[in-house]
């Protein structure tokens, strides 16, 4: 809530000097991040790809789940659909076209799911999205075993790790920019009202279902796009790896760890957690599920509002958590 109060407001239409400054800093950081492949093309770049991927995924996830507080575990469904678009089309169509198809499929699935489920609330929505990822995976497996020659797909391209890294970085930036624009729009204001009180939202004239479906669709498109970009890195694609539920869980943990009150909040979770996860997967490859569970509990109990919430609390220890105006 802390951050929600001073998040973008309809009172601010012009770009303020502060926003210009933040934009400048973001641009510098982005340029610095883009320079990574020039320094190293081995371990650090590989880690960089993971960071950029989760940065893009978590920002896209937060577009919808941040303001609505609906926890979606469908990330793996959109992601896998993107990966498979590339896997099935790489021999026929150029890569950029496949990216567009992946984004389109992610958007279409999200719109479909949105129309069917956004009337569900809380726990029901979470379970449905978890089940959805599994359903899509089963359908793809069924299709491949019955209508194609095998379950796996090979993706060979001449894209290097650096290319993938730059594309992911660009998608993360695009997702962030989209979120910023949405936050300044009527749609963004509507989403904040919906996140606060859906009944009031409806009674001030907001078509709540439509607003949520639009944002879920945008979010799904970005996640599909990320899945497509990651396909060449997998090289060999099969349903359990493309529709890996671990992706959905990691995205939720990282986003919550960072804090979803601000669009850039998840980044504060992505960076430390990706680094930590890299160590965990290397040292304890058989205990990842257990450690993931512990991490989940830790985040929820110790940092319910993420790093963002913690920072706000440390900055204003005495005052109640809110109060600064957005006007």
């Amino acid at each position, binding site marked *: *809530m802390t951050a*929600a*109060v001073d998040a973008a*407001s*309809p*009172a601010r*239409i012009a770009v303020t000097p502060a926003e210009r400054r933040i934009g400048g800093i973001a641009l510098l950081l982005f340029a610095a991040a883009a320079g990574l492949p020039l320094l190293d093309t081995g371990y650090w770049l590989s880690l960089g790809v993971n960071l950029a991927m989760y940065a893009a995924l978590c920002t896209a996830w937060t577009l919808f789940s941040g303001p609505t507080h609906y926890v979606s575990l469908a990330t793996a469904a959109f992601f896998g659909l993107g990966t498979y678009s590339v896997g099935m089309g790489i021999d026929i169509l150029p890569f950029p076209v496949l990216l567009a198809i992946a984004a389109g499929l992610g958007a279409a699935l999200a719109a479909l799911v949105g129309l069917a489920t956004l009337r569900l609330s809380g726990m029901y929505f979470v379970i449905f999205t978890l089940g959805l990822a599994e359903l899509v995976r089963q359908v793809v497996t069924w299709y491949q075993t019955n209508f194609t020659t095998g379950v796996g797909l090979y993706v060979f391209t001449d894209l290097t790790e650096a290319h993938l890294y730059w594309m992911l970085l660009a998608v993360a930036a695009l997702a962030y920019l989209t979120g910023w624009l949405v936050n300044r729009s*009527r749609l963004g*204001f*509507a989403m*904040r*009202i919906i*996140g*606060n*009180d859906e*009944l*009031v*939202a*409806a*009674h*001030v*004239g*907001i*078509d*709540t279902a439509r607003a949520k479906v639009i944002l879920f669709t945008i979010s799904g498109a970005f996640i599909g796009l990320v899945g497509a970009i990651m396909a060449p890195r997998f090289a060999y694609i099969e349903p359990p790896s493309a529709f890996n539920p671990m992706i959905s869980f990691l995205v939720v943990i990282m986003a919550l760890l960072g804090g979803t009150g601000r669009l850039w909040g998840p980044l504060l979770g992505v960076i430390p957690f990706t680094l930590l996860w890299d160590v965990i997967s290397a040292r304890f490859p058989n205990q990842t599920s257990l450690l993931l569970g512990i991490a989940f509990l830790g985040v929820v109990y110790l940092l319910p509002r993420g790093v963002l919430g913690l920072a706000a609390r440390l900055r204003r220890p005495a005052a*109640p958590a*809110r*109060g*600064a*105006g*957005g*006007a």
Partner: protein
Amino acid sequence: MTAILEVEGATKRFGGLTAVNDMRFRVAAHEVLGLIGPNGSGKTTMINLISGALKPSAGAIRLRGRAIGGLRPDRIAQAGIGRTFQLVRILPGLTVQENVMAGGVFGHRRAWGPALVREAAGLLERVGLAGRGGEAPEQLTYIDQKRLELARALAGDPQLLLLDEWLAGLNPTELQTGIALIAALREEGRTIVLVEHVMHAIRSLCDRCVVMNSGAKIAEGPVAAVLSDPQVVAAYLGEADEAG
């Protein structure tokens, strides 16, 4: 008299319980109508049918001749109906000013930008919260939260304003302020339906009253006449014995 609101045979059943039964009344332009009755008589359900929070099981509701019964609440808000809630509902994650703005962006008026900011500031002043737009609404007192909710409803410039026990829970001093505020809205020529228990507020504010009991209309007419109707007295106080 042109009718802003027409309710014809509105009925709401919850399973076997009929909460609102064949209600009929009209609200004319610039009229303040009191909707009164004992607890549990179906007043709030009636308001919910008009605002779209609930869908009627039968009957028609029209706003300026346009059928709105059974539409979604956002459509009804866009058609021009604004409301407050029996238990005040503020938006805790937004500032006071943004709470007011929320009412003016998506309804039948779609303000945005500097005009919206000015308007919100004006409305805050109007309800007695001038200069407090930057505060967090949870820090406001109960009456101030009610004022805020009223300002939010007014931001949509509704053709019909529904106030569900807006005066409930106020102390005597606040009550005077509250009544004065609604009286000012009345002077402004707003069309209002008021659900209320505070009798002297009804006497001073309403042109007419509709009385409900057990979901049905039992009386309608000028306030003084209605309040002395034996049926209405019986509904509130029980059947009259010799004590009368």
